[in-house]
C-alpha cells in the first residue's frame, strides 16, 4: 500500500521520520483484539522491536526480518512493550528466536516487567482471555524507582547479549515533561524517549524516536469492553492523556503509531485525545471487566443480538413494504428514497457475521470476552448504519426506539455500567391501557392526511407514516380487565415495562393469537399483570424468548416473570411490588 507523507507503509523498510540514519519496518494489522501492530526500528547500533504482537506467526515473521538484518549487520535486539497485555507480546513465547533467554533484551515498565516475570494472568489480561502466560525474563526494567532517585544522571547498562545502553531518568517539568520519562541511547544512533502513561494499564508507556510517537493502546483506553479491565485507572488515564496530548502537540511530533489500527497524523491524534479524555471523564464508577462480567456480557450479547436481528429485519421489511405500497401508488421517487433508509444488506452482513462468530466461539470454547467484544463491534457499526429520526418518521417509532435502547443498553453494559432504570410507583393500569391503545390505532389519523392535501411534501410524509405505522394489534381483539376506578400502583420502570409488554404482544401476535386478554389484579403485596393469548389449534409452538431475555428485561423493569404454556394458550404473568 503506498504511503502518504503522514503514513508509513506496512511490511517495508523506510526512513524513520526525524531520526537520522534510523529505518522503520511497520507491521500494521487490521484492527482486532487478538494481536497488536508491531514496529521494528533499525539504527546503526541496535534493532528495536516495539510490541511483537499476540500471534506466534506474527512473531515468527518478525524474527525472520530481524534475522535478515543481523546477517547484513549484526546488532543487539531489544523488544519494548508499550504495555504487558497478551495481545502485544504473547506471540513471542513459542518462537525460539525470542524465547532463548538472553538473546533478546525485553524492556518493559517496572510494573509490567514484574508481572511478566511472575507469569501474572491479571495485569497481562491472560485470565480474561482464558489463556496462560509463561514467566519470562525482562532484562531491562523501565522507569524504575531506583533511577527516579537520580534524575539527569546517565546510567550505563550492559546485557548478556553484549548490548550496552545509556539510560537517563529525566527530571520532571511542565506539559509532556510532567510524565515520568527517561531517555535511552543505543550507541551513536538517535535516542529513544520513554514516557510513563498509565491508565489503560499501570505499565503503559509511550515511546518516541525522531518525530514518531508509539502510543500503545492509550487511544482505546476509554472504549467499551476495554475501560475497566484489570489495572485500568480513570485518574491515571486522565493525567496520562494530558501529558500525551502535550507530547503529540509538540512541533517535533509528526505521526502517532497506535497499538492497533492505522497510523495517525499528529493533528488528528490531538482531536482523538480530546475525545478520549471526554469519554474517560464520564467513566466514573465503572465495574471491573473481569471473567465473570465478560461471561455475563457475552450471554447478554447473544440475547441482545437475537432481538436486534429480529427488530432490524422487521424494520427493513417494513420499509420494503412502505416502498412497495408507494410504488404501487405511482410514487416511484418516494419508493426509492424510502427503501434506502436502511441498508438491509449491511445489516444482514453484520448479523450473519456475528452469528458465524458466535457459532465458531461455542465450538472452540474461546473466552467470553471475545464474543462480548465482537457484539460491541457489530453494535457500534449498526448504530452508525441507521438514521433513527428519519426511520421513526416512517415506521412505527416503537420499533426504532426499542432497537435504539437495545443497542445503547448493550454498550452501557459492556462499558461496565448498569443500563439506567427509573423504578418508581406508577399506575400499571394506566401504562397498560395507554400502550394497548397506542398499539391498536394508527399513529396518523385521517384528519392529518386531509389537513395537508395542498402540501405535496407534507402529504407524502404523512402518507408514508400511515403506511409504515400499521398498528401491531389491528387484527387482534385485545381486552384489558381490571376493577373499575381502581389504581394498580406498583414500583416499576415504565419504559422497560412497556418494552416487555410489547415483546410479549408481538410474540402472541406472531403466534397467530386472535384474542389477547390482559388482566390486572393484586395478590398479597404484588400487583399482578397477566397477558394471555389463545393459540389456534394445530399451530406450531413459538420459540419463546423466555429463557433469558424476557425474564432479565422483566427484572430490569422491577418485576418477576412467569410463563405458562398450554396447547390452547400462552400466559405471561408479571408480578411487581405494590406501592402502598
Amino acid at each position, binding site marked *: 500500500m503506498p504511503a502518504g507523507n503522514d503514513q508509513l507503509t506496512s511490511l517495508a523498510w523506510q526512513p524513520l521520520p526525524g531520526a537520522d540514519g534510523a529505518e522503520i519496518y511497520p507491521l500494521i494489522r487490521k484492527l482486532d483484539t487478538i494481536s497488536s501492530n508491531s514496529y521494528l526500528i533499525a539504527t546503526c547500533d541496535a534493532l528495536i522491536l516495539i510490541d511483537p504482537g499476540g500471534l506466534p506467526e506474527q512473531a515468527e515473521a518478525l524474527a525472520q526480518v530481524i534475522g535478515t538484518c543481523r546477517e547484513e549487520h549484526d546488532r543487539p535486539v531489544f523488544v519494548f512493550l508499550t504495555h504487558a497485555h497478551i495481545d502485544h507480546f504473547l506471540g513471542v513465547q513459542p518462537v525460539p528466536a525470542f524465547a532463548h533467554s538472553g538473546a533478546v533484551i525485553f524492556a518493559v515498565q517496572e510494573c509490567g516487567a514484574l508481572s511478566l516475570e511472575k507469569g501474572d494472568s491479571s495485569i497481562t489480561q491472560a485470565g480474561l482471555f482464558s489463556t496462560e502466560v509463561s514467566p519470562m525474563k525482562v532484562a531491562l526494567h523501565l522507569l524504575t524507582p531506583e533511577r527516579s532517585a537520580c534524575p539527569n544522571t546517565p546510567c550505563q547498562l550492559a546485557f548478556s547479549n553484549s548490548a550496552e545502553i545509556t539510560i537517563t531518568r529525566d527530571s520532571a517539568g511542565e506539559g509532556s515533561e510532567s510524565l515520568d520519562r527517561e531517555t535511552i541511547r543505543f550507541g551513536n544512533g538517535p535516542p529513544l524517549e520513554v514516557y510513563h502513561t498509565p491508565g489503560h494499564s499501570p505499565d503503559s508507556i509511550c515511546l518516541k524516536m525522531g518525530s514518531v510517537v508509539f502510543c500503545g493502546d492509550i487511544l482505546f483506553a476509554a472504549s467499551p469492553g476495554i475501560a475497566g479491565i484489570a489495572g485500568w485507572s480513570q485518574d491515571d488515564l486522565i493525567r496520562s492523556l494530558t501529558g500525551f496530548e502535550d507530547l503529540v502537540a509538540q512541533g517535533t511530533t509528526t505521526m502517532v503509531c497506535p497499538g492497533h489500527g492505522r497510523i495517525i497524523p499528529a493533528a488528528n491524534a490531538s482531536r482523538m485525545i480530546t475525545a478520549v479524555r471526554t469519554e474517560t471523564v464520564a467513566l466514573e464508577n465503572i465495574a471491573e471487566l473481569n471473567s465473570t462480567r465478560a461471561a455475563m456480557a457475552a450471554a447478554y450479547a447473544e440475547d441482545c443480538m437475537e432481538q436486534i436481528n*429480529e427488530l*432490524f*429485519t*422487521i424494520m*427493513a*421489511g*417494513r420499509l*420494503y*413494504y*412502505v416502498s*412497495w405500497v408507494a*410504488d404501487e401508488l405511482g410514487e416511484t421517487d418516494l419508493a426509492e428514497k424510502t427503501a434506502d433508509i*436502511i441498508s*438491509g*444488506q449491511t*445489516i*444482514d*452482513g453484520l*448479523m*450473519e457475521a456475528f452469528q458465524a462468530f458466535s457459532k465458531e466461539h461455542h465450538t472452540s470454547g474461546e473466552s467470553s470476552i471475545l464474543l462480548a467484544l465482537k457484539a460491541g463491534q457489530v453494535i457500534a457499526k449498526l448504530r452508525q448504519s441507521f438514521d433513527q429520526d428519519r426511520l421513526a418518521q416512517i415506521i412505527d417509532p416503537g420499533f426504532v426506539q426499542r432497537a435504539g435502547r437495545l443497542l445503547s443498553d448493550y454498550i452501557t453494559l459492556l462499558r461496565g455500567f448498569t443500563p439506567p432504570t427509573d423504578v418508581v410507583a406508577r399506575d400499571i393500569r394506566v401504562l397498560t391501557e395507554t400502550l394497548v391503545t397506542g398499539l391498536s390505532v394508527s399513529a396518523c389519523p385521517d384528519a392529518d392526511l386531509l389537513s395537508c392535501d395542498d402540501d405535496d411534501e407534507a402529504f407524502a410524509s404523512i402518507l408514508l407514516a400511515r*403506511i*409504515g405505522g*400499521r398498528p*401491531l394489534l389491528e387484527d387482534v381483539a385485545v381486552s384489558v380487565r381490571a376493577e373499575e376506578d381502581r389504581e394498580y400502583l406498583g414500583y416499576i420502570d415504565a419504559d422497560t415495562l412497556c418494552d416487555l409488554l410489547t415483546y410479549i404482544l*408481538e*410474540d402472541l*401476535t*406472531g*403466534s*397467530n393469537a386472535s384474542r389477547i386478554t390482559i388482566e390486572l389484579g393484586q395478590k398479597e403485596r404484588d400487583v399482578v399483570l397477566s397477558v394471555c393469548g389463545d393459540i*389456534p389449534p*394445530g*399451530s*406450531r*409452538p*413459538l*420459540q419463546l424468548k423466555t429463557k433469558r431475555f424476557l425474564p432479565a428485561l422483566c427484572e430490569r423493569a422491577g418485576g418477576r416473570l412467569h410463563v405458562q404454556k398450554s396447547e390452547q394458550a400462552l400466559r405471561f404473568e408479571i408480578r411487581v411490588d405494590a406501592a402502598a
Partner: protein
Amino acid sequence: MDITTADHEEKTVLFITGRIDTSTAPDLEQAINRQIDGQKRCILLDFSGVTYISSGGLRVLLATAKKLKNPGDKFALCSLSPEVLKILKLAGFTSIFSIYPSEGEALAGW
C-alpha cells in the same frame, strides 16, 4: 437451503428448507425466476422447512410479488413457522400476499 419443486397442473409449489439469508436469498430468487420465466404464474412457497429469514429474503418475496401481480397471477406462502410468520406480520407483508396454514388449504383456496 434446499429447494424442490412440484407442479400441480398450472400451480407450482416450491418446498424450501433451511435458512434464507444473504448467501441463500439469491438462490431462492433464481429458483422463483426460473418458474416465472417458464410461464408459471401461480407460485406457492412452502415454508414448512424454513427456520430463518433475513431482510434479504424479505426483499426476494417482495420482488416476486411485484412480478406476479397481473390478473390471474397468484403468489402465496404456506406452513410458516411462528418465528418467520411473526417477522412477515410485523413487517406488514401479510397484506401483500396471502399466507395459508398449510399447502392443502392454499391450493384449495386458489
